[in-house]
């Protein structure tokens, strides 16, 4: 400590005491160097953000990954080949086979239009890039923009230093990378950028009270609405912020100008998206924004009148007026909702509040794995040290509590709750965690890198004097804001230190008070420790991105014993078999998970797909899968099904196969036909879900079970095979299929495709035909040569 003080004495003039010497530059040069550094850092962060998302492309290939992106990719191809107007009115006759889907009006077009615009831009510059590569690399490109938007947002909260830290955090935080690796061509790829940009513009509009920035907020809000269904989060966050500001007594004309211009334009703009339509005036999700808009008009009016009317009673009357009208409007809203003019919450949003609702009433929502609540380790896995800096940042914001800080605090509370309810919403939590952690970390670093030494206590003084001095400085520190302190420092510097003209540092703002950090050693340890934390954060993020989030679900990779990689490519093998060996209008029935991939890769019409808009149709497929052959064959015939595709992981140990999803099929079918499909029939009397010989009769005779284990024992020489997912032996005797023919089974038996037999030409039932061909004559069988049944088309 003493060395620090002495070096501090040697370093600086008599006015300020510093622990180490800062480089002395003129104010101009200082500014230029800082802005150059800022630019370089932002570009490096963008580079890190892009390059850490390329693991999957470098390791495997440049393809679209999950299920949903395949629809987006197909829609983008329609946009780029047929033009914008065809895309806008695109009716997809190959999806939801008998029904079709008006895809142009039931999708958020922002993502497709964005990549279509980039495609056209590149082609107009004579850079002929394939649309697939644009789609694959769109998410990494936008992650760079997200880093920039987060920088702007955080800089508006605190300062540039915190902004740069926040940009670095969000650039590599796994919570955001998980949804934006190269190949993940999903709505979230651009949505998080738009979210941060909208929030930044809102803060800017609120600070300036400018209608221009309010309109800009509305325009980015419009873009966000066109891009992602999560725009409802913005629609409720901004009104909530405005409402809390009003309740805190912080209403100002700036709030009126910014919110009103944002709401009036943003709402009208959001209604231009066909998928949204009249929802902003008709559904409960949007009523908060409308209510706050009305309340704001009322409060603005009353505030003005109140300041001009002297009578105290009249002022009281005005307050009563606001409360009464607000209560009346709320009552009217409730009445309208009950009367049916305003639609209540949709199931997806309602299940965020009543967490048991989806499982009870809408199994299709609960069946999606990312709609489950996360466990604690997920937070540490996705956000590492940010998760424990996050509350610190919120606390620091509470201490200063400017209008915009209220926004971050509300955002933090709401997003934490939602992320706690649903794994998927970790994505909206990540930005605020980065912002808040950056504020905490930069406050820490600024305190310990600040070279100013506190004035030491004179030796003659007693401890009482020290206590007095401390309490007095504390009192003064709470009253003065950082800005005024900074100004005071600059003033004192220019007045006392005229020979050493050092500009006031834009980063370090503390005055030389009586308490602070003494010496170089404490500074050194804390700084090194923080740097270590930051470095470990980078290592963790890279590790998580590389191991957990960079695997294309289309290709399965496994390691051999010697470390070499073994690629399992059964999905594409099967899809391309469908594409090349079946009629172009052959209908493929599968569970809805694979709908988008089949139409994207195999290019065949499907019955159901990942856009789960028609629950009954999905339940029909579920019923066909879980009934016995005699009952499901008519269903297949009525829907013109030519092929049935199932996923079976029992041979390889691929756990996401259809037998494991089977219970959801049964539940969804049970929801529609409770007296034909009963979940309890698939469990043994002891309540076990078994696939071996102990399985129930209903289970053993169901179509999916038969298709899964058909010829399974042949692989094991006729003995019962080992199912490596369920870790039990399979059935002792392979099931027989009467109404279906095995058409294709992929190399590792992951995808099995069955062809639906045509009805017999002689009108016999299909089991009878099979028995006849097998040589087992029936009593009344015809003495005719057997027709070639089940021939390929």
């Amino acid at each position, binding site marked *: 400590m003493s060395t620090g003080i002495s070096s501090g004495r040697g370093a600086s003039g008599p006015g300020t005491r510093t622990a180490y010497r800062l480089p002395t530059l003129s104010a101009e040069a200082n500014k230029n160097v800082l802005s150059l550094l800022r630019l370089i850092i932002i570009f490096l962060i963008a580079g890190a953000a892009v390059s850490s998302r390329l693991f999957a492309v470098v390791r495997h290939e440049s393809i679209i990954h999950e299920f949903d992106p395949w629809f987006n990719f197909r829609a983008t191809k329609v946009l780029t080949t047929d033009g914008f107007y065809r895309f806008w009115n695109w009716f997809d006759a190959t999806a939801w086979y008998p029904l079709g889907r008006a895809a142009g009006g039931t999708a958020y077009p922002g993502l497709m239009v964005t990549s279509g615009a980039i495609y056209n831009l590149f082609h107009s510059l004579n850079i002929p890039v394939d649309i697939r590569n644009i789609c694959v690399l769109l998410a990494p490109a936008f992650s760079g923009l997200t880093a920039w938007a987060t920088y702007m947002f955080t800089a508006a909260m605190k300062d540039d230093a915190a902004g740069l830290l926040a940009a670095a955090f969000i650039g590599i935080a796994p919570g955001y990378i998980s949804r934006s690796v190269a190949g993940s061509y999903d709505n979230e790829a651009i949505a998080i950028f738009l979210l941060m940009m909208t929030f930044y513009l809102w803060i800017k509009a609120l600070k300036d009270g400018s*209608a221009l920035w309010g*309109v800009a907020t509305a325009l980015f809000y419009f873009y966000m609405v066109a891009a992602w269904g999560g725009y409802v989060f913005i629609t409720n966050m901004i009104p909530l912020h405005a409402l809390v500001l009003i309740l805190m007594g912080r209403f100002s004309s700036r709030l009126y100008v910014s919110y009103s*211009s944002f709401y*009036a*334009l943003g709402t009208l703009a959001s209604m231009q998206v066909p998928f949204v339509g009249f929802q902003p005036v008709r559904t409960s999700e949007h009523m908060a924004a409308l209510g706050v808009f009305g309340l704001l008009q009322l409060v603005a009016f009353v505030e003005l*009148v109140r300041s*001009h009317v002297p009578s105290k009673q009249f002022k009281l009357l005005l307050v009563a007026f606001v409360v009464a*009208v607000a209560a009346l409007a709320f009552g009217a809203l409730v009445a309208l909702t009950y009367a049916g003019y305003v639609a209540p919450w949709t199931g997806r949003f309602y299940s965020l509040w009543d967490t048991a609702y989806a499982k009870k009433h809408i199994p299709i929502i609960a069946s999606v794995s990312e709609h489950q609540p996360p466990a604690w380790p997920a937070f540490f896995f996705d956000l590492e040290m940010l998760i424990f800096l996050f509350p610190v940042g919120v606390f620091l914001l509470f201490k200063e509590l400017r209008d915009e800080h209220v926004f971050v605090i509300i955002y933090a509370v709401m997003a934490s709750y939602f992320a706690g309810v649903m794994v998927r919403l970790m994505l909206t939590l990540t930005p605020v965690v980065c912002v808040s952690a950056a504020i905490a970390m930069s406050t820490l670093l600024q305190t310990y890198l600040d070279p100013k030494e506190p004035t030491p206590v004179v030796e003659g003084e007693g401890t009482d004097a020290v206590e007095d001095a401390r309490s007095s400085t504390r009192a003064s520190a709470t009253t003065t804001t950082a800005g005024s302190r900074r100004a005071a420092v600059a003033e004192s510097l220019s007045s006392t230190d005229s020979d050493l003209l050092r500009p006031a540092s834009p980063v370090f703002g503390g005055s030389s008070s009586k308490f602070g950090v003494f010496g170089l050693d404490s500074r050194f340890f804390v700084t090194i420790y923080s740097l270590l934390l930051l470095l470990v954060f980078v290592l963790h993020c890279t590790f998580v991105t590389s191991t957990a989030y960079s695997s294309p679900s289309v290709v399965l990779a496994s390691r051999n014993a010697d470390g070499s990689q073994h690629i399992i490519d059964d999905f594409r093998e099967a899809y391309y078999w469908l594409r090349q060996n079946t009629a172009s209008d052959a209908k493929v029935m599968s569970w809805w998970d694979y709908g988008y991939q089949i139409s994207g890769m195999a290019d065949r019409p499907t019955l159901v797909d990942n856009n789960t808009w028609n629950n009954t149709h999905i339940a029909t497929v579920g019923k066909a899968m879980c009934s016995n052959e005699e009952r499901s064959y008519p269903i297949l015939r009525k829907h013109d099904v030519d092929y049935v595709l199932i996923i079976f992981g029992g041979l390889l140990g691929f756990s996401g196969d259809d037998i494991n999803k089977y219970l959801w099929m049964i539940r969804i079918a049970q929801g529609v036909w409770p007296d034909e499909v009963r979940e309890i029939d698939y469990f043994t009397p002891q309540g076990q879900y078994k696939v071996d010989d102990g399985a129930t009769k209903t289970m053993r005779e169901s179509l999916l079970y038969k298709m899964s284990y058909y010829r399974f024992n042949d692989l094991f020489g006729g003995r019962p095979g080992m199912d490596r997912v369920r870790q039990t032996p399979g059935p002792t005797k392979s099931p027989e299929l009467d109404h279906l023919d095995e058409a294709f089974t992929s190399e590792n038996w992951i995808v099995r495709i069955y062809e639906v037999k045509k009805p017999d030409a002689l009108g016999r039932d299909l089991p009878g035909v099979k028995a006849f061909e097998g040589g087992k004559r029936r009593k009344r069988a015809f003495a005719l040569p057997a027709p070639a049944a089940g021939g390929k088309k």
Partner: protein
Amino acid sequence: MPPKGARASTSAAAKSRSSASTPASTSKQSPLSTLYNSYVDNTPKRLKVIDAFLVFLMLSGIIQFIYCALITNFPFNSFIAGFASTVGQFVLAASLRIQANPENGKTFPAVSPERAFGDFLFGSVILHFFVFNFLG
């Protein structure tokens, strides 16, 4: 939206009729007439022009809403477009009035009256683009 939007515009219009003047002296008059008198006396002429525009917009919105409520809302998008154009224009004009009011100078350090007018023009152009797109 319709009922509350209409109420919102009436209340904000009433605000426009109130004055941005200094507190009037305590007299025996009712507070409402105090308000009216001080508005007539103390409001600059250009703000009164904006107020006249605001009243016109409010009346237009009310008429549209009454038509919708009493007769038909059949082309609902046309009603929304027309009504949103009056509400949006009202809000933008009210914002202009607040920002251009010399008494609010210190509330808006970043916005001069000329800049406020520029913002108003920009917002109105964007608004009417969306309105025409939505009329159908």
